[in-house]
C-alpha cells in the first residue's frame, strides 16, 4: 500500500505540468522584460522600461512615427502654431478624445498634467525647465509659453512625463498641480495600480518586479488594438528570456544580447531585430590639470582619439554596434556620417604626444564602473582601451569601481580619465549640448565657460535657441567638427540593441523613445 502511495505521489508530480491552465479565449500578448521601473506615475516617469507601459496607456500632445524619432506628428493635439518669436506654442486638441473613464479630454487636463509634472520636482521635471506657463485658451486650445526659444520642446513633449492625465480623476486621488506638489501630491500610490489616460490600454494590475497587466481601454478614441490583454513579465535574466521565447511562453524578448543572436538564426519561429542603441559609450578626460594630469592636455586628448581602434572597440559590443563621428549619436538629426569619424592613426598619435612633450609616454589610471550594460562589459572595453593606448606609450592602469561609487565620483567631476555612457533624456540632438562647456557631462570633465574657447561657447549658445532645421544642422555639424579636434571626450561606440519575437507577430517597429509600440502588434 505504501509503495502504491509513493508511486501515486511521484506520478502526480510528473503530471502536474502537463495539466496546466485551460487556455483563455482572449488574445494575450506576453512581453519578457528585465523590468527597471519601480513606479508608474507619469509625472515621475524617467525609467526607460516604463515607456512600454506609458506609451500603451497614455497619450501625449504630439508624437513620433512608429519606427523613428525624426519627425513630430499630431496625437492629442491635431495641430499647433508657433509664434514668430518662438516663445508661444498653441495646440488645438482633438474633440473626439475621452479618458478611459469616459470623461472628455479638455485643455484643463493638459494644463494640470504639465504643471503637476513640473511641480513634482522629480526626475523628469527638468524637461519643463523652459516652460514658463501653460494656459487653457478655451476648452480645446492650450498655449504653452516658453522662457526662451527651445528647439527641442516638441520632442520633449513626446516624453512619457508629458502624458496627459485626467485632472479631475487624479485630483480625486490626491494629485495636485500646485507649486508645492512635491510635498503635497499623494497620487503616486494610486498610479501604481490604476491609470487615468487616453491610451489604448488601461493598467489592470502592477506587481512590482513581477508583472504589469494592461487591458484594453473600452473608451479608446483611436482604432481598437488587437490584443485584449498585455502582460509584461519581469524576466531579469536574458538567458531565461531567450528560453521562454523559444518555448513560446512569451511573445517578445526585450533584452536579447549579441551573444544569443547566432542561436536564433536557425530557428524559423523567432525573428530578431537589431539596431544600434542610443547609448553612447565614451572616454572622458578631465580638463582640470590637478585631476586629469596629462589627460587635461588637449593634445594628449587628440592623441588618444587617434590611438583608438574604433572598429575593434565596437566589435567588442557585438552585432549592431557602430561608432559615431563625434558626441552626437548616429540616428539623431545632424549627426555626422560615421565615415567622417576619427580613424585610428598610431603614428599620428605618437607624433602628437611627442609634440606635447610626452615622447616617453606616461602612466595614467582609467576609472570606470565595473558593470555590464546591454551586453557591453566595461571591463573588456577598458582592457581594449588599455591595449590601444599602450601602443602609443600611454600606460593605463585599470581602476574598476563599484557602480555607485564610480557614479558619485563621475558626477562630481572627480575622475581624471574615465569610461562612461550616456543615454538621451529626450529624442532631440539638443540633448548633446550637455557634452559642451557648462553642460551636465561637460562639467564632469570640468569643461567650463572659463576654460573653454569662445568659439565653442558661441556655437553652444546659438544652437540652444536655433529653431530653423537647416541652421540647426549646420551648427551641430560645426560643433561635432570642433569636438573631433578639441574636446575632453572620445566617442567609442553605440552598442547594438536586439529584440527577438515570435515570427508570426505582426507590426513590430523600433523607436528610440518607447522602443516597441505594443498597441500596434497583432497576430
Amino acid at each position: 500500500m505504501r509503495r502504491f502511495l509513493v508511486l501515486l505521489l511521484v506520478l502526480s508530480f510528473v503530471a502536474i505540468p502537463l495539466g496546466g491552465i485551460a487556455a483563455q479565449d482572449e488574445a494575450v500578448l506576453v512581453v519578457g522584460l528585465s523590468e527597471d521601473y519601480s513606479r508608474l506615475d507619469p509625472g515621475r516617469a524617467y525609467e526607460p522600461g516604463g515607456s512600454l507601459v506609458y506609451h500603451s496607456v497614455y497619450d501625449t500632445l504630439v508624437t513620433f512615427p512608429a519606427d523613428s524619432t525624426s519627425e513630430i506628428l499630431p496625437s492629442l493635439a491635431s495641430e499647433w502654431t508657433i509664434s514668430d518669436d518662438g516663445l508661444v506654442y498653441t495646440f488645438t486638441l482633438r474633440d473626439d478624445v475621452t479618458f478611459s473613464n469616459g470623461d472628455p479630454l479638455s485643455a484643463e487636463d493638459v494644463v494640470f498634467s504639465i504643471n503637476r509634472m513640473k511641480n513634482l520636482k522629480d526626475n523628469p521635471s527638468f524637461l519643463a525647465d523652459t516652460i514658463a506657463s501653460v494656459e487653457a485658451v478655451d476648452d480645446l486650445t492650450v498655449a504653452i509659453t516658453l522662457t526662451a526659444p527651445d528647439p527641442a520642446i516638441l520632442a520633449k513633449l513626446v516624453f512619457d512625463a508629458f502624458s496627459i492625465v485626467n485632472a479631475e480623476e487624479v485630483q480625486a486621488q490626491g494629485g495636485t498641480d500646485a507649486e508645492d506638489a512635491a510635498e503635497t501630491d499623494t497620487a503616486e500610490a494610486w498610479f501604481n495600480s490604476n491609470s487615468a489616460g487616453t491610451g489604448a490600454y488601461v493598467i489592470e494590475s502592477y506587481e512590482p518586479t513581477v508583472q504589469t497587466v494592461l487591458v484594453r481601454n473600452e473608451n479608446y478614441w483611436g482604432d481598437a488594438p488587437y490584443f485584449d490583454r498585455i502582460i509584461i513579465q519581469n524576466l531579469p535574466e536574458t538567458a531565461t528570456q531567450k528560453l521562454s521565447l523559444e518555448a513560446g511562453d512569451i511573445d517578445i524578448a526585450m533584452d536579447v544580447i549579441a551573444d544569443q543572436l547566432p542561436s536564433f538564426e536557425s530557428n524559423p519561429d523567432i525573428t530578431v531585430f537589431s539596431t544600434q542603441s542610443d547609448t553612447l559609450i565614451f572616454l572622458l578626460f578631465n580638463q582640470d590639470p590637478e585631476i586629469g594630469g596629462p589627460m587635461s592636455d588637449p593634445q594628449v586628448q587628440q592623441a588618444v582619439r587617434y590611438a583608438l581602434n574604433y572598429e575593434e572597440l565596437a566589435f567588442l559590443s557585438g552585432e549592431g554596434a557602430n561608432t559615431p563621428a563625434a558626441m552626437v549619436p548616429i540616428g539623431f538629426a545632424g549627426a555626422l556620417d560615421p565615415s567622417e569619424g576619427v580613424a585610428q592613426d598610431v603614428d599620428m598619435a605618437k607624433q602628437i604626444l611627442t609634440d606635447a612633450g610626452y615622447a616617453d609616454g606616461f602612466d595614467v589610471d582609467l576609472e570606470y564602473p565595473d558593470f555590464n550594460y546591454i551586453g557591453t562589459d566595461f571591463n573588456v572595453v577598458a582592457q581594449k582601451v588599455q591595449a590601444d593606448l599602450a601602443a602609443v606609450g600611454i600606460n593605463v592602469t585599470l581602476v574598476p569601481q563599484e557602480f555607485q561609487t564610480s557614479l558619485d565620483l563621475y558626477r562630481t567631476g572627480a575622475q581624471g580619465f574615465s569610461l562612461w555612457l550616456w543615454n538621451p533624456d529626450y529624442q532631440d540632438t539638443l540633448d548633446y549640448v550637455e557634452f559642451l562647456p557648462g553642460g551636465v557631462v561637460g562639467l564632469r570633465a570640468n569643461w567650463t565657460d572659463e576654460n573653454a574657447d569662445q568659439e565653442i561657447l558661441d556655437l553652444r549658445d546659438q544652437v540652444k535657441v536655433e529653431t530653423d532645421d537647416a541652421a540647426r544642422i549646420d551648427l551641430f555639424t560645426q560643433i561635432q567638427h570642433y569636438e573631433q579636434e578639441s574636446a575632453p571626450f572620445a566617442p567609442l561606440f553605440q552598442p547594438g540593441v536586439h529584440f527577438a519575437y515570435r515570427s508570426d507577430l505582426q507590426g513590430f517597429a523600433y523607436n528610440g523613445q518607447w522602443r516597441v509600440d505594443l498597441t500596434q502588434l497583432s497576430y
Partner: protein
Amino acid sequence: MSLYRYLARRLLLLIPLLIGISLVSFLISNALPADPTAANLGERAAADPEIVQAFRDKWGLDDPLYVQYLSYMRNLLRGDMGTSIRSHRPIVDELSKYLPATIELATFGIVISILAGIVFGVISAVWRNRPIDFIVRIISLIGVSAPVFWLALLGLIVLYLRWGIVPGPGRLDARVIAPPNVTGMYTVDSLIAGQWDVFRNALAHLMLPSVVLAAYSVGLITRITRSSMLEVLSQEYMNTARSKGLRERHVILRHGLRNALMPVVTIIGLSYGNLLSGAVLTETIFAWEGIGRYAYNAARTLDFPAIMGVTMLIAVVFVVTNLIVDMLYYFLDPRLRYQG
C-alpha cells in the same frame, strides 16, 4: 533547567543581539563611499541643487548619523521600517510580499534537501565503498560544487525547453492570476481558496527552482549524514542492538540514525538560513521575486531603508533558525536537559 526558562533566556538574549546587528548594518551601509542621491536621482535631477536638497531633506540624509539611527529605531519599535527610497513604498509592505515567496521556495528546498540528503547519506554509509556509495558521493560532490547558475540553466534547457515537463520561470504562468493573498505563499493561498488549477501551477513552478536551490545542501547533508553514520555504525552499542536480535533496518534507523542526526540537524538549520538569505542567483534566473533579489536590488540602488529592512529580517531568520536547532538538540540529546 526547564525548557521554558531556557527558551525565555534565549529570547531575551535576542534583544541585544538584534540591536547590535541593526547598529552594525546601519553603520556599514552608511559608511559606503557612495550616495543614494546619485543612485536614485536621474542625471539631470542630480545636477539640480534644489531637487538634490529636497531629496536629502526628504530622506533625512543630512541629519547626523546618530539622529538617523535613533529615528530609525524609534520607527522600528512602532513596526515602521521606513519607506523605500527607490519605489516610495513602505518597506514592511515590500518585505511582507517578498518574504513569503522566499519562504515557500526555501521550505521546499530544505524538505528536498533533508529527504534526499539523509536517505543518500544513510545509503552511502551502510553500503560503504560499494558502487551505490560511489554514485551517491558523486551526486553529492556535484551538488556541492556545481554553480547554481549552471545547474539552473541546464535544468531549464533540458526539463523546460526540450522536454517540457516543468514550466518556465516565474511563480506562476504569466496568464495565471495569483490566488487571493493570505500567507503570500501561492501553494498555500491557492489551497485556501480552493483553486486547484492555480495550486498545480504554483507547485509545478516550484519544482525546478527548489531542486536547484537544494542541490548544495543535499550534497552537504549527504556528506555529513554519511560521516556521522559511519562513526555511529562503528559504535559498540550497534552490535549490542544487533545481538539483542533486532532487525538490521531497525538497528540502523532507530539506533544508528537517531544518534547520527545531531550534527545533521545543525547543518540543516544553517542550510535553511542560507536558503532563505542566499537565493539571489536562483531567484534571478527563475524570476522568483523573493528576499534575495530584493536585497540585491536594494544594495544596487543604495536604498538604505530597504537594505536595513532586509538585513534585520535575515538576521531575525538566522537567529530564530538557530534557536529552533538548539531546541531540537534539546529533544534529540537528553543529556542537554540535565545541564545547568
